[in-house]
Every structure is written in structure tokens, then in C-alpha cells.
């Protein structure tokens, strides 16, 4: 007789021990654990530990546009070099070449075999990037954006970031546990396009522009001077902070549109401290090509001012004193230490190939997450006590057995979640608490069946057996329907909802196990020892 229970009891005991073991790494109860165990445990979701969940869209059309623009100007250069009388310009999606003759077409084919002839009319040839090339450019842009963001996040220092691609041109970034969320978002989303352009101090309008304006006045200023700005120039702004008053203002710059050097040639960017003003600045170094370019630009433009521009914000515009060799430069500006550090990070990891557009931002501060956990634990404990007390009052000793199953249920559920290294979210906690209420349902169904059988005059032993048998299918059906819900929620849900689906789904199996094997074993044990005359139910 005893042998019959032995495997069931040892199964329950093993499951309990395993559950506790797997959960241990998530607690601070034991200081040193074997290494194989350390990888288990429950991970807290973003909503519980705080952090950032971002979805960005990479503006891939823009990348294609920029590529076409580059090809058009590159072709114009080639024509000039080869002394071919031809013009090349970009119109919409087309690269338009005129005049239409064989020499021109041959040059285009040699230089850019990926261009396909779109149409010919009025002595012009219209070329377009072929679709394979367009796809390659788009794909490459997203891959590069991913890589750049990974780089930045790594250097920023986030414990377990998740950065992946979604659909064709979306990037999902999860940064759990980040405290300074605002800084993280700015770091990730910055295009970080570094450009060096000359100021145009000779244009007549340059003297009319105000030196500084209060922040927020940019749009008005642009409107005011619209039409007066020379075709090759643009107005850009720089941020200034007065050291004494800490009041911010915007410096107005008239800048030539032509980009002389870009950040593509950077090899290094470091934060240094200016000894005189005790202000941080970022020193940058160019590679050999960049250094040569920089030397050329500085040599040709002595006494002119060179603006250092990041994402269309002018950081500084020092006057060139002399030719600069060696390829080192400094970016100064009114920034604090953290800002300088982040600037160095984005410069080191390179610019994004295309601007990012934020589609979704879910940020949870660390305090809200902690409040949620505390509230969840409190609600869980109170819920469990209410259910446990009710079951004992209503079903007496049998209620105690059901409560035993309930406790097993929760232990197994937490253990299983730990073993799967599942992510626990607030809805997930709600799922566990609901599971407390649902865990005893199967037992209630069986107990009520037993009561039916007892009323019919059956012995306790027979009542228990037929109670279990008859209630089985009802219990099974109800679990399957819950499982269907869980699977659907998992398929269609996002982050926190997935967490709920996991607890709900895992809970179904555990509940079946504890109800059918857990409590049954206890009943069998009690009735096997001696002849039970009366069942406490």
C-alpha cells in the first residue's frame, strides 16, 4: 500500500525542493550559490524595476534620398574631371543627366552600375536606383543604426539591454534598470551628425542678425529673415549658458550650407577638463584622411570662423588662427560633465545613418516599480490569507488539505517561473494573485462532488475516489479554456501582458498537478492508514 504513494510523495517533494532552489538566485537569502544555479531566477520586467522601452522608426527613405543626392553630385564631379559637358542633378527620386548622349550614359554605367535607366525625354536621361540597391541601402541603414545604438548603450553601461529589429525598419530598445532615463533616451536617439561648416560673415545680412536671442525665439527669427538669407547659406543656432547667471540663450549663426568635414573621419573622442574655466570639453582626433582634409580646410580659411555643428546645433565657431596639422580639434560649449561624456560616446560610436523617429516610449521610474512590487506582495499575502481562512471555515480539515495544495501551487508557480527565467511584470503579479483564488477551485469542485457522494451514503473512501473521478473532466475543461486564453494573450500581447500570459499558462499546468496529485495523495494517505468513519469536509 505504501509503495503506491512513494513516487507521488517523492515527486511532490522533488518539485518543492527544485522550486525553492530555482527561486533562490532571485532572493538575497543565500550569499553564495553554485554557478549552474545562478542563471535561474525571476527577472523583473521594466514596469517593476524601472527602465526604458523605446521603439524607433529608422527614416530609411531619407537614407535612399541622401544616397541619390550623393550619387548625383559624385557624377557631376566625374563629368568635370573627365571634361564631359554634362549636368547631373537630383529631382525627386530621379538622378537627371543632360544632355542625352552615349558618352554620358557610358560614364554613368561604369561609375554606378546599380542605376537603372528610368526614362529618356527632352534630351535628358532619368536614372533611378534599382530596387535591389534600394533594399540593400535600406537594410544597411537599419543594421548600421542597430549597431550604432548597441555601441552607445554599451558605452553608457546598461546591465542587460535588449536591442533588436522589428518589422523592416523599426528598432526596439529595452533598457531595464536605467535610473537616468532622460539621459538614456537622448543618448540613444541622437543622430549625432557632426559637421564642420564655415560661417558667412561677409554676407550683408550677417550684420543685421541679432547676436543672441532668448530660447524659443528661433522660429520667429527664421520667419523674419526668410528670403534675405543667401541661397548657399542657412541660419543655425547654438546654445549658450551664462556662467554666472545660468541663464540660457541662443546664439545666431549665418552658416554656409556646404559641409567641409564630417564626423565620419573621427577615430577618437575624449572628455577633457579645461584647466582655466574648469569646464569639460571634448577633444576629437581625425584619421589620416580627415587630418589631411582638416589641414586643407584650415589652411585655406585662415581668419575665417569654422562652426562645429552637431545635428544642426552649433557648438562653437572659433576663428581659424592658422593651418592646423595633426588632425586634433576640440569641441567646447556650455555643457556639464555628463553631457560632455555623452557627447564623446555618440561621437565615438558614430552618427546614425538616418534620423530616428520615436514611435513609442514607455519609461518607468524606479520608485513606481518598487511601489508596485510592495503593493503586489501585500495584495498577494492578504488574498492568500482570505482564501486560506475561508477554505478552512467552509471545508474544515479538507479545507486544510486544499490550502496545502494552494501553498504548493504558489511555490511551484514561482519555481517554474524561475526555472524558465521568466520576466515578472505587474500584470504577472496580478496573474499570480488570481491564481491564488483559482488554485482552490479545482478542490472546491472535488469537495462538492465528495459531499454529493457522501449524501448518497457512500463511505468516505468511496466518496473521495468517485469525487475525484467525476470532477476530473469538469476541471480539465475549465483548465483548457484558461489555457486557450493564455496562449492567445502570449501571442498578441506586448511586454507586461506577455508576463501575465506566462503566469496564467504555467499556472494551469501546476494547478492540474497540485489538484489531481497533491491533494489526492494527502487524502489517500489519511484513508490508507486506518478506516476513516467520517470525513471532515
Amino acid at each position, binding site marked *: 500500500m505504501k509503495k503506491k504513494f512513494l513516487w507521488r510523495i517523492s515527486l511532490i517533494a522533488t518539485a518543492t525542493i527544485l522550486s525553492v532552489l530555482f527561486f533562490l538566485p532571485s532572493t538575497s537569502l543565500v550569499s553564495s550559490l553554485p554557478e549552474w544555479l545562478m542563471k535561474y531566477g525571476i527577472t523583473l520586467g521594466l514596469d517593476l524595476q524601472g527602465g526604458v522601452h523605446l521603439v524607433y522608426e529608422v527614416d530609411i527613405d531619407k537614407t535612399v534620398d541622401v544616397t541619390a543626392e550623393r550619387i548625383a553630385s559624385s557624377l557631376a564631379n566625374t563629368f568635370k574631371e573627365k571634361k564631359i559637358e554634362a549636368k547631373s542633378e537630383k529631382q525627386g527620386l530621379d538622378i537627371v543627366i543632360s544632355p542625352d548622349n552615349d558618352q554620358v550614359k557610358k560614364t554613368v554605367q561604369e561609375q554606378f552600375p546599380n542605376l537603372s535607366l528610368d526614362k529618356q525625354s527632352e534630351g535628358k536621361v532619368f536614372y533611378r536606383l534599382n530596387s535591389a540597391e534600394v533594399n540593400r541601402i535600406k537594410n544597411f541603414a537599419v543594421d548600421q543604426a542597430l549597431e550604432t545604438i548597441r555601441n552607445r548603450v554599451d558605452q553608457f553601461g546598461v546591465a542587460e539591454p535588449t536591442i533588436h529589429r522589428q518589422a523592416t525598419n523599426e528598432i526596439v530598445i529595452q533598457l531595464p534598470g536605467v535610473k537616468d*532615463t*532622460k539621459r538614456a533616451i537622448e543618448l540613444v*536617439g541622437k543622430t549625432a551628425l557632426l559637421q564642420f561648416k564655415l560661417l558667412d560673415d561677409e554676407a550683408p545680412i550677417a550684420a543685421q542678425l541679432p547676436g543672441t536671442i532668448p530660447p524659443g525665439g528661433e522660429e520667429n527669427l527664421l520667419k523674419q529673415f526668410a528670403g534675405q538669407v543667401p541661397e548657399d547659406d542657412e541660419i543655425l543656432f547654438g546654445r549658450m549658458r551664462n556662467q554666472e547667471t545660468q541663464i540660457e540663450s541662443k546664439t545666431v549663426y549665418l552658416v554656409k550650407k556646404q559641409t567641409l568635414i564630417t564626423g565620419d573621419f573621427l577615430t577618437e573622442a575624449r572628455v577633457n577638463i579645461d584647466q582655466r574655466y574648469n569646464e569639460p570639453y571634448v577633444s576629437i582626433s581625425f584619421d589620416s584622411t580627415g587630418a589631411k582634409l582638416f589641414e586643407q580646410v584650415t589652411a585655406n580659411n585662415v581668419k575665417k570662423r569654422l562652426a562645429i555643428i552637431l545635428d544642426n546645433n552649433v557648438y562653437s565657431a572659433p576663428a581659424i588662427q592658422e593651418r592646423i596639422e595633426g588632425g586634433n580639434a576640440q569641441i567646447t560649449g556650455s555643457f556639464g560633465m555628463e553631457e560632455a561624456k555623452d557627447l564623446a560616446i555618440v561621437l565615438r560610436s558614430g552618427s546614425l545613418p538616418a534620423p530616428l*523617429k*520615436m*514611435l*513609442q*516610449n*514607455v*519609461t518607468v*521610474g524606479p*520608485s*513606481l516599480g518598487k*511601489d*508596485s512590487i*510592495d*503593493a503586489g506582495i*501585500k*495584495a498577494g499575502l*492578504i*488574498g492568500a490569507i*482570505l*482564501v486560506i481562512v*475561508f*477554505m478552512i*471555515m*467552509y471545508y474544515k480539515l479538507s479545507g486544510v488539505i486544499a490550502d496545502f495544495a494552494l501553498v504548493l501551487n504558489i511555490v511551484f508557480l514561482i519555481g517554474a517561473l524561475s526555472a524558465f527565467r521568466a520576466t515578472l511584470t*505587474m*500584470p504577472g*503579479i*496580478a496573474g499570480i*494573485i*488570481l491564481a491564488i*483564488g*483559482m488554485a*482552490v*477551485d479545482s478542490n*472546491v*469542485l472535488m469537495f*462538492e462532488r465528495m*459531499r*454529493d457522494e457522501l449524501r448518497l451514503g457512500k463511505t468516505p473512501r468511496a466518496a473521495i475516489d468517485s469525487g475525484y473521478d467525476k470532477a476530473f473532466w*469538469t476541471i480539465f*475543461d475549465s483548465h*483548457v*479554456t*484558461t489555457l*486557450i*486564453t*493564455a*496562449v*492567445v*494573450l502570449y*501571442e*498578441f*500581447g*506586448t511586454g507586461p*501582458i506577455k508576463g*501575465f500570459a506566462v503566469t*496564467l499558462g504555467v499556472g494551469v499546468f501546476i494547478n492540474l498537478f497540485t489538484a489531481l496529485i497533491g491533494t489526492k495523495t494527502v487524502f489517500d494517505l489519511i484513508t490508507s492508514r486506518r478506516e476513516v468513519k467520517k470525513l471532515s469536509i
Partner: protein
Amino acid sequence: MIELIKNTKIDFMGKRFIALAVSAILTIIGLIAAVQVARGTANLGIDFAGGTAVQIKFNTSVMLHDVRKALEDGGIKDFDLQDLPTENKVLIRIKKSGSNIGELSKGIVSVLSQKYSQGNVVVDSTTEIGPKVGSKLRKDALVAVLVATLGILIYVAFRFQFKFGVGATIATFHDVLAVLGIFFLIGKEINLLLVTALLTIAGYSLTDTVVVFDRIRENLRTKFKKSTSEIVNQSINEVLSRTIVTSFTVFLSSLALFIFGGEVIHDFALAMILGIIVGTYSSIFVASPIVLMLGKDKGFNKK
């Protein structure tokens, strides 16, 4: 043996027309709510409508109208304010923000930081959903509801006879619509978490229906002499205590969640509580009468 309900002989089926009237009203409200949700005119959450929600925790207590004034002066438009007075928290929501997401939340925080000094303003959470994501989430939620209902329907059809399947499906729809309708009526936000609750309710309410159906099916097999109506009535009376007890235990844990579970999960818990009550009611007053009506004439007493 403690029994809450002893040997009841309530004539449930006799009251089925009153119940059907009540259910019809609940269902109609639910249908109206569903249409409003689809049209985007209901009180949709930020996750469905797109927009910005910022929850700020102040270290000292603040007056809601001061916050409102500060935001208005700071040029923030079309916002909703909601306070959680127990913890000095204020929730600022702006629906259907333009395409420039990311800027709005920054603006809100900087306006409030200026007014209330930086140290006093702690950003609890920020949610910004672009219009594209919002409509995708809305579509996903709809598909999820349909797939789940279909899945449940197929399972019930597989396990029970046709008329039981019809009864269970209608009862499940009834429960989901009723809770959605109540949320719509009391102006609660309809968001992803509510949809999760609704699906959970769909699964759970069926549990309850299955308990009743199992007994009806069993009694139909064993008690030939009685009329169908009597059998249905007797079955419900027999299982009344267990459907109430099973619902009650889940009700208890949902109640604990509702009272102590914190702000994030508050409405979810409310939906579960409503769902449990409606689900228990519908097993008796919606699912069973439908079985009775469909099975009145023939083939019912054979098995």
C-alpha cells in the same frame, strides 16, 4: 458540513425572462461601447489612442488647479489631469499628440520643474505612443479577442453538444460585453490591460458555465421522467453552492488585488471583480436558458 446554500429549490428558469431582459440591456450597452471603441470615441487609453501620459510624483502636496494653471501657462494644450491624492501623484494625459512624440513629455516635465523646483518633481512614469503604434495595438487587441473567442468556441463545440456550445459562447460574449459596457458607462479607461482582463474573464466565466453544463448533461442522462425545465432547474440548484464558492475564492483574491494591489493594477482588478460576478450570473441565467430553449422539442431526453 457548513453549507452556504442548502437544498435550494429556486425556480431559476421561471425567472429567465426577467434575467434575459437584464442581460439584453447589459449586452446592448456593451455593444455600444464596442462600437465606440472601434470608432475611437470611447475613453481609450494612451496605448490605443496614441498620445502622451506622464505621471509625476511631488514630494510635497500640491493643488491640482495649480498644476493645471502651471501647465496652461507653460503652453501645454488639451491635457487631462487626474490626481492620486494619497501619494501626491498627478497623471497628465494628452491624447492623439502629433507625430512629434518625445517632445511633449519633456515639455511637461520642464514646465513643472520650473514651477515646483527640480527636486520636488519626480517622474514616475512616461508613456508615449505614436499614432502608428496605437492603431497597431488596437488591431492586435481586436484580433486577440476574436482568436480567443474562436478558440474557446471550438473547444466547447468539441467537448459538448451543439446547443451547449451555443449557450456557452453567448454567455461568454455576454460577460465580456457586460464588463466592457460597465467600464464604458462609468467612464473608465479602455486600454490594453482591460482587454487582458476581458480575455481572462472570457476564460474564467466559461469555467463556471462548464460546471453547470456538466451537471445538466449528467442529469439529462439519468433523470428521464422530469421535464427539461425541471432538470435544468434542479441541476442549477445542485451546483449552486459550488459555482458560488469557486467564484467567491477568486473574488476574494481579486478584491485583495483591488484594494491593496496599487494604482497600476487597480482597474484590472475591478474588471476581474465585475467579470466574476457577471460570469457566475450568466452561467445560470444566460447559458442555461439558452440550452433549455434550443433543446426544448426533440432529441433532448434521448441521451
